[in-house]
């Protein structure tokens, strides 16, 4: 029991420390680069992709960050942009559903590449799967919301 408690404490501290050391610098770096032209171009290109799952241009930036860096580290940007741009429940729903299945592509790919998995297939399959599920769930959610209003 005490050893479970010890694992919990050290594990929590480790988790929080890692999140802290990564979240804060990411927020600072992003604040610096957000207005720059290359960043905007990247977001615009990404927006053209995620448009197909129903995400608008303002949702594209946080989705891109979550996609590349992950939810723990990109979560800060996601929460901030949802508040800052008042993205609305529909966008948040789509974004959460999509990102829950593809995120942290950079880190995850490296980890599984080390094991010998094919990164291309892993990433491609995840994106396609996430897109399909997101479209389906959004359709269902739209129906539910509409029925509730009617």
């Amino acid at each position, binding site marked *: 029991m005490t050893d*479970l408690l010890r*694992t*919990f404490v050290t*594990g*929590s501290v480790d*988790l*929080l420390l890692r*999140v*802290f050391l990564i*979240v*804060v*610098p*990411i*927020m*600072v*770096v*992003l*604040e*610096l680069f957000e*207005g720059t032209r290359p960043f905007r171009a990247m977001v615009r290109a990404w927006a053209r992709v995620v448009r197909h799952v129903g995400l608008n241009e303002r949702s594209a930036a946080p989705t891109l960050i979550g996609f590349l860096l992950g*939810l*723990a580290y990109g*979560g*800060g940007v*996601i*929460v*901030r942009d*949802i*508040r800052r741009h008042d993205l609305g*429940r529909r966008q*948040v*729903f789509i974004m*959460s559903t999509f990102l*829950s*299945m*593809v995120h942290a592509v950079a880190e*995850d790919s490296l*980890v*599984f590449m080390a*094991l*010998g*998995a*094919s990164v291309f*297939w*892993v990433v491609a*399959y*995840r994106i396609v*799967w*996430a897109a399909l599920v997101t479209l389906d769930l959004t359709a269902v959610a739209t129906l539910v919301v509409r029925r509730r209003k009617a």
Partner: protein
Amino acid sequence: MTPAAASSPGAASGEPSPQPAPGLGARLRRDLRIGVKAGLRTFWELARVMVPAYGITLVLERLGVIQRLAQLARPLMSLLGLPGDAAVPLMVGYVLNIYAAVGSMQALHLSAQQITVLAIAILIGHNLLVGARSSTRRA
């Protein structure tokens, strides 16, 4: 939450984005301040949901829930062309995280193709307790 949002420096000074170019040093300092503030707030929000979920996960692991789930998922593994033992890393990934899953994958002898399939399965769903709590808080 609201008072913090209202006192965001950009809104307070009434200047729109970086257009007026107040000098690089000032801009750097301002961005640094906003970034650190946003980072700290986020950190606190994430910490509040992640730590309890992590605790629950540890207890589930200790109770042997993962092994039991793996036993249940065993028959499904052949559908993916994987040996039954592959259920263990999959469930470890679902309940814990990808690092733990990678750890338990090391113990199995899988082909590159099987590793890719298992990687896809684990990457689509992992760390479900911590993740679910974080994302419901967010929405």
